[in-house]
């Protein structure tokens, strides 16, 4: 059985130890294992649903290669994706769906990205990255020498008020782990975190919240939302003490709060009592954002804020982040989408294998420089630590 697995991995052009437990693998490698699993059954039709959503660019490329190989081997591949560049790089035909109905099916060759986006959102989309220039204020977050053995090493950076700082790098390079440690979800081994000039106690999300730090987590369904609970309850869950009088939560205040944010974020919902599990992915993400913005934070950390949501909502999220930064909010964003990083960030921090490799200002951050730093194929000039 192990030999069979090794043969399959060979066919896919990857080098994996068949004895390793799947739990410790990177998401990319887990995807490869999934595909190997499908091949082992001699599948003729393979459906891939958002296979690259959690992958970085180079990893995605490897997966697309595998998909091409499968196609050339005679298998039919159905590829579901939000990433148009992949669609155009890989697919022969495409089908656009909106609101549960097919909008159009046509060969890829006869269309372009702009047209597909129009089909997807049903209208013209003008500005995908509505970044407004801001002047950075005081340092809100100061991280120095943050280290967790085996996860990330000696990470130092600052985030100022009104600034959007992006964490770029491959999935698994330790970006999410750093922001989790900053917010206090995970314990770190050494280093320090300061918010507005005074140290933040480690491993205490409540203390972070009290000091105006908010974290929109990576995984919306598992970490961001209480799926069976209503829109109102999800929105209010972090600020319950503010809504409570003598320990009893005032339902009216809760609903007012939720209604306020639903309106501000243009949430499309079927009533504040609707369970969030019935909302679309994009609207779910808006609820997560509402939940954290309701805490009135000084520092908003967003981890993959637009993963797996449609193009229209993506633009709304970007506009919201820009607008908040414009009002003096410090934003720290982890993202695997280079266009998003380059379009939104005032500064880009690039991580590789748990280390901060480069810090690039908006002006000097280009796709090539970020990717080179992220993959370590060449060292890039940059401060390497806080600006």
């Amino acid at each position, binding site marked *: 059985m192990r030999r069979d697995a090794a043969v399959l991995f060979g066919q896919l052009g990857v080098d994996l130890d068949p004895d390793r437990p799947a739990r410790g693998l990177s998401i990319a490698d887990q995807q490869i294992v999934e595909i190997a699993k499908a091949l082992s059954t001699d599948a003729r039709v393979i459906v891939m649903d958002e296979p690259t959503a959690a992958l970085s660019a180079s990893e995605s490329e490897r997966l697309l290669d595998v998909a091409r190989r499968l196609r050339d081997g005679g298998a039919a591949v159905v590829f579901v994706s939000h990433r148009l560049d992949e669609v155009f790089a890989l697919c022969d035909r495409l089908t656009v769906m909106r609101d549960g109905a097919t909008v159009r099916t046509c060969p890829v060759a006869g269309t372009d990205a702009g047209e597909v986006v129009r089909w997807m959102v049903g209208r013209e989309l003008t500005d995908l990255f509505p970044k407004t220039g801001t002047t950075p204020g005081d340092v809100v977050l100061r991280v120095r020498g943050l280290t967790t053995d085996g996860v990330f090493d000696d990470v130092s950076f600052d985030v100022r008020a009104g600034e959007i700082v992006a964490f770029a790098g491959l999935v698994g390079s330790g970006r999410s782990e750093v922001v989790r440690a900053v*917010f206090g*979800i995970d314990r770190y081994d050494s280093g320090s975190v300061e918010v507005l000039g005074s140290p933040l106690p480690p491993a205490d*999300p*409540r203390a*972070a*919240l009290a000091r105006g730090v908010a*974290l929109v*987590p990576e*995984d919306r369904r*598992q*970490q*961001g*939302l*209480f*799926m*069976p*609970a209503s829109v109102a*309850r999800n929105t209010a*869950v*972090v600020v*319950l*003490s503010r809504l*409570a009088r003598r*320990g*009893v*939560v005032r339902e009216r205040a809760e609903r007012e709060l939720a209604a306020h944010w639903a309106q501000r974020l243009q949430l499309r919902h079927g009533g504040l009592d609707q369970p969030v599990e019935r909302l679309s992915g994009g609207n779910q993400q808006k609820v997560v954002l509402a*939940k954290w913005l309701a805490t009135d934070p000084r520092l908003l950390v967003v981890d993959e804020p637009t993963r797996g949501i449609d193009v229209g909502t993506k633009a709304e999220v970007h506009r919201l982040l820009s607008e908040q930064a414009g009002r003096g909010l410090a934003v720290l964003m982890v993202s695997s989408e280079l266009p998003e990083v380059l379009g939104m960030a005032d500064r880009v921090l690039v991580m590789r294998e748990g280390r901060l490799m480069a810090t690039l200002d908006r002006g000097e951050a280009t796709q090539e420089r970020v990717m080179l730093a992220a993959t370590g194929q060449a060292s890039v000039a940059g401060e390497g630590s806080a600006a």
Partner: protein
Amino acid sequence: MSRVLSWDRSVFVLLVVTVAVGAVIDPDFAGGSNLGFVLQDIGEIMLIALPMTFLIMTGEIDLSVASTAALAGCVLGWAWQASGSMAVAVLAAVGTGVVCGAVNGFLVTRLGLGSLAVTIGTLGLYRGLCYALLGDTTVADFPAGWTNLGFSSIPGTPLPYVTPLLVVLAVAFGVVLHLTRTGRWVFAVGQSVEAARFAGIPVARLKFRLFVVTGAVAGLAGIVYDLRFASARPDGALGFELAVIASVLFGGVSIFGGVGTMWGVVSAVLFLGSVRSLLQLQGVPGNALTIITGGLLLASVVIPVVAQRWSAFRERRSRVLAAATP
């Protein structure tokens, strides 16, 4: 689950129907003295079911509650004999419950062990300590004034003295679960522990406190049990853990956490007590009672699922029909 068909409402309706039908077919059933008996009979189960609801809502479980109650009961007897003061004994018993709950809570929240495994272990440990404490003896010399509290009625009413305690605690636990921040946290933790941590809910501290409260209330139940049976014994409350859990689940609390209501649980305990009493008065043998308890528990999970599938099927069909008509 569909809102109209929600299980907690169904249980309440079942309770009302059972009492009404019982009153018609058996005049003895609806009599005051039987009502008092039923209340007394479900006393300990109801008490422990209140905090157990919280625990199961957060996705944890405590199988050691019956052993905790028994140990608290044994400590009550032991401390009464040692000190000669019932006040001291009661404090010692409740304190024992708190310590037992804290041990469970520590093992689950600090060491990260599964609560099912931990409380199977402490179930044996606490019961073992009962024997270590009392051995082959039974303490049966509690002052008559106290034991009267256990089995006589409030003068002028058919209600046992335990009634006010049940009412006050049930209301208190219901208010906390459904109206306060702590209650919201309990729901949130049950729906997603991870999301709760990200939302700054002190998950470990909350769970630890729930285990402690469960232990304390189990200790209280141990005292009620001792007084009702006028004796403290190492094999008291044997097997109550499954009865409590069955009641909580029957009341519509999801074993996966995050779903449930306090009044559903209270209705369930009252319903199971009434059904048992009614069947007993009808001379239904004990074996059949066991089958009915199990059958009801199965029904509590089967019926909502079947109902949900049925309504989903109808919804789909009506959508298809609506689409078909121009």
